[in-house]
């Protein structure tokens, strides 16, 4: 115990909680109105990342909770102003590291809108985007449910969640070459087409997943311990969601069927069959159910994507826009030194077409110019509305890119959810918000 100007400070290092309890008891006996302030995080296994929560406690009741963020701020938006429009993808994919493909899509949709080429993006590229996003939604929700279980003490759930997530990451690795931070979706299309054998792998995945999800649900859906930790905990109703700007599974758990994939479709979502999953519990359990149901819906969409990708292809079916001044080379192949431009493409630019060489050189060194103006494009990420506000001054680099990250906004609601509740419920509340600090801090 040390005394400071702000009061007595106890450093709890393990096995010494009794000392704090005794001090709190003394204070109560003295009739003092001093409160216990507990600093939770930023390095705490249950804060879901480098999040710091300053809790003011009255016994076990939380009277005030102040989230402190910024520990993962890396200046991604600033850095993007110093790179070309295409290179920006490599930065923004790292923001919300559990849903990289959504970051990329939101950014690329904004760039395409500024360029006025939204309609020219090839159909196959859009199908691939949808496929990758829905796979990503599954991996993100599995991580959310898994860590949620771990934070409440159910490590089996965590292991099951990560085991299934691994299957998605294997697919990512097969299709994009990377398990995270893919930079797969680029302005004008995607980086490359499906590799051979991907359709079969997708079919295997679709066949095995429903059973695996059932296994996960059996652990949690009617588990009495889980129900008592999650039912009526961290309640946030529709009015609260609206005023705090909450979107995504939290909003749908409050009963509002709001999903940008349905209400303001992009990437051709209007052509897929799927349902919006809602619950009316507005509590932690309802958010869990929404996420699990959304995984099922994502599997439905992936099945439709796989069918479209497996269908007989027309002769000309590119995955990158035809405009040579915008479309990056998307004919990649694995060579002796790793992934790179295919031999055909190299032969084309080096010995067949002077214009192709010029375009390649200009695109890679200078980048393309984007007409001056500003746009806002948004996608439904696993955590809610992910928006990208892009401003161009007519140059080859963004003047400003701002991301409206759903984690950042949703995390504001932690005070509304937790104040007046128990300390133990703070863990459940934060886990049910599912904030990813990389997206919060950017």
């Amino acid at each position, binding site marked *: 115990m040390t005394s400071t100007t702000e009061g007595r400070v106890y450093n709890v290092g393990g096995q010494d909680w009794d000392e704090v309890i005794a001090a709190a008891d003394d204070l109560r006996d003295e009739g003092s109105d001093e409160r216990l302030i507990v600093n939770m995080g930023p390095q705490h296994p249950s804060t879901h990342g480098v999040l710091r929560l300053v809790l003011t406690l009255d016994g076990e009741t939380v009277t005030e909770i102040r989230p402190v963020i910024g520990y993962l701020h890396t200046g991604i938006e600033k850095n993007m102003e110093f790179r070309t429009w295409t290179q920006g993808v490599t930065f923004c994919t790292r923001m919300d590291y559990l849903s990289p493909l959504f970051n990329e899509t939101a950014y690329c949709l904004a760039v395409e*809108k500024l360029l006025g080429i939204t309609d020219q993006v090839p159909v196959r590229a859009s199908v691939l985007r949808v496929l990758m996003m829905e796979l990503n939604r599954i991996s993100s929700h599995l991580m959310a449910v898994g860590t949620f279980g771990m934070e409440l003490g159910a490590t089996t759930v965590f292991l099951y969640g990560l085991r299934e997530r691994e299957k998605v990451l294997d697919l990512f690795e097969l299709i994009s070459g990377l398990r995270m931070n893919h930079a797969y979706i680029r302005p004008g299309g995607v980086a490359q087409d499906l590799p051979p054998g991907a359709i079969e792998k997708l079919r295997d995945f679709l066949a095995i997943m429903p059973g695996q999800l059932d296994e996960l649900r059996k652990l949690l859906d009617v588990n009495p311990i889980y129900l008592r930790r999650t039912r009526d905990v961290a309640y946030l109703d529709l009015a609260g969601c609206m005023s705090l700007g909450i979107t995504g599974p939290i909003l749908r758990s409050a009963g509002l069927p709001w999903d940008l994939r349905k209400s303001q479709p992009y990437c051709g979502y209007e052509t897929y069959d799927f349902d919006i999953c809602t619950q009316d519990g507005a509590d932690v359990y309802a958010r869990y159910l929404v996420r699990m149901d959304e995984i099922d819906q994502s599997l439905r969409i992936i099945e439709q994507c796989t069918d479209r990708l497996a269908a007989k292809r027309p002769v000309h079916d590119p995955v990158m826009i035809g405009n040579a001044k915008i479309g990056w080379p998307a004919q990649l192949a694995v060579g002796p030194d790793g992934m790179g431009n295919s031999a055909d493409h190299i032969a084309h630019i080096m010995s067949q077409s002077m214009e192709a060489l010029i375009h390649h050189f200009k695109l890679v060194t200078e980048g393309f110019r984007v007409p001056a*103006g*500003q746009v806002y494009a948004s996608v439904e990420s696993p955590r809610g509305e992910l928006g990208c*506000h892009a401003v161009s001054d007519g140059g080859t680099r963004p003047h400003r890119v701002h991301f409206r990250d759903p984690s950042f906004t949703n995390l*504001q609601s932690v005070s509304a959810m937790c104040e007046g509740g128990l300390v133990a419920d703070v863990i459940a509340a934060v886990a049910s918000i599912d904030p990813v600090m990389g997206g919060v801090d950017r």
Partner: protein
Amino acid sequence: MTQPPNPGSASSDEQEEDAGAQAGEERLSEPVVRTGMFGTHTTGDTSGYGGLMVRQQPLPSSARPYGSYFDEVADALGSALEASGLNFGTAVERVVVANGELTLHVRRDYLVEVCRRLRDDPHLAFQLCLGVGGVHYPKFAGSELHAVYHLLSITHNRRLRLEVSAPDADPHIPSVTAVYPTCDWHERETWDFFGIIFDGHPALTRIEMPDDWKGHPQRKDYPLGGIPVEYRGATVPPPDERRSYE
């Protein structure tokens, strides 16, 4: 020298030296017409395109009809503002329709009232605010700092952008947290990154940068890198000074 010194020649030598020094000084007093032997000291542009000058575009402003649902929104906002004794033209200085999006440039004094009407009027019903982002335009004299608000109406499935500007010398914009509580953290972030002071915000403190940070990093006059790091006196060099192999 074997020749004996001539007493008279000393003075003529001096005279010659004087003449030489004088000529040198005269030469040095002439203006410089060229320096160095090689290289270019101009832009090096031999094409002539280097002389191309592009003037700044006038600020975009759209005239009616705006198309899509934009006219309806503008009309509804106009009549809602009239109910509170305001004129649409007074509150909104410019309307811009571009890329299929509607932007209302709102004068900062009327921002809160406009937001309240946008949220509460049933014909507008912009319930959801998607936060505030800043943009720094150093070239727009008198309105360098912009705050951009994205609104969403779930009732009508419509989007709207509000843009408010403030000069660098007086970076004040009223806070909309009373209307849209979600803007709490967004306004803190915009203050942190751009130095826009949101008057009326309950606790306008830094949110992403450390509390004692100097400067506002997203402004255009703030460098990328080159900032001393709070770790054992380390410094990250600016990008143009990195990877020097000399």
